């Protein structure tokens, strides 16, 4: 879905979102209140410039509109794969964006993200995955990396990877698998405005993804292992009880 029709469905009571080189910014009305909207479109590759623009928008919300909710609209093909971005230290820019989101959360801003088209790896980790809650449209693409690059890194033949990606939930792209693993909170269908309003009401600053992944059967180990480190008692029992 393109961002203009998305915004019309998400914000029927109006918005001021504008696009500038695949960067989205503005405000919108949700549930009778104003929210800040930050995002990207056009499968944007997240390079140093767009990461900075997004971070700046988050900081502006924190400084000028304390506790105003923030809605993140995600459509990215991942971090920009260029020598220049690596030379400039793109990971610092990504981390900066992530830190700005964490600051906003700690200052009482509720943050809800929606993957409305694509979400890949680095571009996703510091945007949608830093929100209090992340949602996706049914037709959205969510994955880590394109298969050819993956084949080169893992040295597993492309044909085998393509085959695996069809069936293995840990490996296979798509919102359903991310939902099962706790990576997203729900897949939205129907009245988007209603679901966004609800999500903003329910957003919690606690990271509950590993518990959700266990509950939904997608990640059997993440929660019990972290819990075992935390408690460091009854380790065997704890892990056994939670085995798939």
């Amino acid at each position, binding site marked *: 879905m393109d961002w203009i029709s998305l915004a019309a469905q998400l914000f029927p009571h109006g918005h001021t979102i504008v696009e500038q080189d695949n960067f989205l910014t503005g405000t919108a009305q949700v549930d009778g209140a104003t929210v800040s909207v930050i995002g990207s479109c056009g499968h944007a590759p997240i390079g140093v410039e767009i990461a900075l623009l997004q971070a700046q928008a988050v*900081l502006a919300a924190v400084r000028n509109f304390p506790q105003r909710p923030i809605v993140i609209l995600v459509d990215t093909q991942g971090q920009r794969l260029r020598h220049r971005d690596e030379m400039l230290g793109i990971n610092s820019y990504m981390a900066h964006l992530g830190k700005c989101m964490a*600051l906003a959360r700690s200052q009482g801003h509720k943050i809800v993200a929606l993957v409305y088209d694509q979400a890949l790896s680095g571009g996703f980790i510091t945007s949608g995955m830093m929100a209090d809650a992340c949602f996706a449209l049914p037709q959205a693409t969510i994955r880590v990396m394109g298969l050819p690059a993956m084949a*080169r890194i893992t040295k597993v033949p492309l044909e085998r990877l393509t085959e695996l990606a069809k069936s*293995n939930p840990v490996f296979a792209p798509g919102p359903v698998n*991310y939902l099962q693993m706790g990576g997203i909170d729900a897949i939205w269908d129907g009245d988007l405005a209603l679901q966004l309003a609800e999500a903003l009401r329910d957003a919690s600053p606690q990271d509950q993804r590993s518990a959700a992944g266990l509950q939904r059967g997608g990640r059997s180990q993440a929660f019990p*292992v972290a819990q075992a480190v935390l408690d460091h008692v009854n380790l065997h029992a704890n892990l056994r009880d939670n085995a798939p």
Partner: protein
Amino acid sequence: MNSYLEAHARERLDAVLDPGSFREFLPPSLRIVSPHLGQLDAPVSFDDGVAIGAGKLFGEPILVAAQEGGFMGGAVGEVHGAKLTGLLQRALRERPYAVLLLLESGGVRLHEANAGLIAVSEVMRALLEVRAAGIPVIVLVGGSNGCFGGMGIVACCANAIVMSEEGRLAMSGPEVIETANGVEEFDARDRALVWRTTGGKHRYLLGDCQMLVADDSAAFRQAAFELMQECHAAAATISLTLEALEAEQQFLQDRVDDFGAAVDPLDIWQKIGLADAANLPMLEADAFVAATAQLRRRP
């Protein structure tokens, strides 16, 4: 001199921490392995490539993790990530003097792609919560696999990073960029270019790492402790503040403005004002720091 680069994770822990002080959580004897690797006929490791636990540094109690580059390049899967997240959550309860992360990682373990990606983001959020609680997080990068992908982001979420010149810190590996955009974009076999672009010296000059040390475990040990002390001396800066992040925004914007047109790190070094930029890769760490300390950018 005890090479940090060549050591394994547990050897690094022994060399960096006070002798005999490391107490491991979820040790290999518990045989907690990745539930996904077996399905792909990939080997498993009894620690899933990361050792975590408690230890002491110059007598101060810390929590510590060390990624093992020898197992799948230190990549983060479901269990590996959960060990790191659990350690950081434990720090919130135990309130150690600091958390020390010895990172060596290619990022998300592609064999358990989705679980790895979520795990890295959980580590990131847990790390920032530790900082918010006033506990400093220090990262060491000096392993032969570097610190890439999601872990390259995690590293930059810490209070401070120590690197050796052999250490590499970046986002996408040169092979990934070459695969996506061709050898003209980034020649992964041009080792000098790779080091100029991602290596400790360049990161130090840009201000992405706070200290550059020789490839020596004792030097890493010393630097880690000094940075912890500095954090505690300026305790208010351990957690994130609006003012600090606005300053960082300006710092990172200035970098794009000043160096955004450069095509090679050498151009940047010359623009910073280093007279003999071409020879910088040849300098030993101490001489390099002495030659550049006044000119390097810092936040």
